[in-house]
């Protein structure tokens, strides 16, 4: 497989099925270091499965996933490499403890004892410094998702996977979270893979956009090309809302 000089993660010959139908059929996909790639598509297109495979949380039945040009599986990915990437899911999945302890979880499992300043900065970045000592059961949905984002960002990951991070949130929280994602990408060079069914969010954040339909990537292009000059009629139909599923 030909590797791009700046590629950080590659998928090759991915085929994955649940029961009798293919969920994913992706011959090749290349993630560039420092980019924000948005994967859009309707519900059930295979977006979350793709994200779990890229994050080495699920093994594809066929094909390989390369990280820094080396093929790994979830079982043989060294823990040091696993700790260079992290994910935020649609549900915040917080631990039943304080906001502070949640944000510091990843640092604690890495054995880092001097992370107080990093936790404070991460909480400040998501605007929740004042809730540090609160239990997570007292948070609103938007606050909980911001805690989940702070928990990921405090680790300063090389790749950040986001699975519908703003679904079901109000516009104010959506704006805050999008700003944080953009800042992480611009200030730290964090590579971001964003799965979303919100094409406008993809347009606001991404450098490149991929359309996933029935487990296959129909089109992948720079954001302006994707939205203004889609090459595939199904992309055009998806963007105009004429593609009904």
């Amino acid at each position: 497989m030909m590797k791009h000089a700046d590629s950080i993660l590659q998928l090759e010959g991915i085929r994955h099925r649940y029961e009798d139908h293919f969920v994913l059929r992706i011959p090749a996909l290349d993630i560039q270091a420092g980019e924000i790639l948005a994967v859009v598509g309707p519900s059930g297109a295979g977006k979350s499965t793709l994200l779990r495979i890229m994050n080495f949380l699920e093994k594809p039945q066929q094909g390989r996933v390369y990280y820094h040009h080396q093929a790994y599986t979830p079982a043989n990915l060294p823990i040091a490499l696993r700790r260079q990437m992290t994910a935020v899911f649609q549900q915040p999945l917080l631990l039943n403890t304080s906001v502070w302890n949640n944000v510091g979880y990843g640092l604690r499992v890495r054995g880092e004892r001097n992370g107080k300043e990093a936790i404070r900065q991460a909480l400040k970045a998501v605007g929740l410094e004042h809730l540090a000592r609160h239990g997570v059961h007292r948070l609103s949905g938007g606050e909980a998702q911001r805690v989940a984002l702070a928990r990921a960002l405090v680790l300063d990951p090389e790749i950040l996977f986001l699975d519908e991070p703003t679904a079901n949130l109000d516009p104010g929280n959506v704006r805050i979270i999008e700003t944080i994602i953009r800042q992480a990408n611009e200030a730290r060079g964090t590579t971001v893979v964003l799965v979303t069914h919100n094409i406008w969010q993809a347009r606001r954040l991404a450098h490149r956009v991929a359309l996933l339909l029935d487990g296959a990537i129909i089109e992948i292009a720079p954001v302006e090309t994707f939205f203004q000059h889609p090459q595939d009629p199904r992309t055009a139909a998806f963007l105009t809302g004429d593609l009904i599923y």
Partner: protein
Amino acid sequence: MDVFLNGFRQALELILSLDPDLLEIVRLSLVVSGAALGMSAIMGLPVGIFLGLKDFPGKRLVVAVVYTGMGLPPVVVGLVVYLLLSRQGPLGEWGWLFTPKAMMLTQTILALPLIGGFTMTAVAAIPPALMLQLRSLGATRRQIVLTLLYEARAGVLAALVAGFGAIISEVGSVLIVGGNIAHKTRVLTTAIVLETRKGNFSMAIALGLILLALTFSANWFLLHLQGRLDPRA
């Protein structure tokens, strides 16, 4: 009514006088049930975590066995352990019969399914996606298990409360395998049986009140711990 009042008065007198025989019985009760609780926790917590997290062929049968074990009659456990440890039994050479070790063994068997079953239920209630989240945050397999155990702490503490309550108050199995021998295997429950048979009801009630106080104190401690550990409590 006088019997109860006398029993209450006698209990206070026994406690305040620090009666050596009473202290010995209380100490042995706590040692036997404490050791059994510890042993059953060491075995039951990993079993409960495994059953709560893993799916495997025959799991339903194993879970049914665990649930059945949660209702084991103490006298039946005592009888089986008695036969195993008796001189002609397969474990007779251990020489454990009519010793505190035999009592610990029966109480461990009684508490084990309770702790395993409650822990399994508590762990199974955690969203499966949390495991993926913890992996993606860089936790090792061991760290994930410990985190899930901590997440299930309310249920785990309930398991320990249920296990301790069941064994500190049971009499059937410890009477059969311990024999209620003075200064050797006499615990609060077997002493209550003895005093009742002797017609010494005041003493029996006094011992009963002490047993209740001990159980209440242990549960209060665990509930206090639960409240400290769980922000929602």
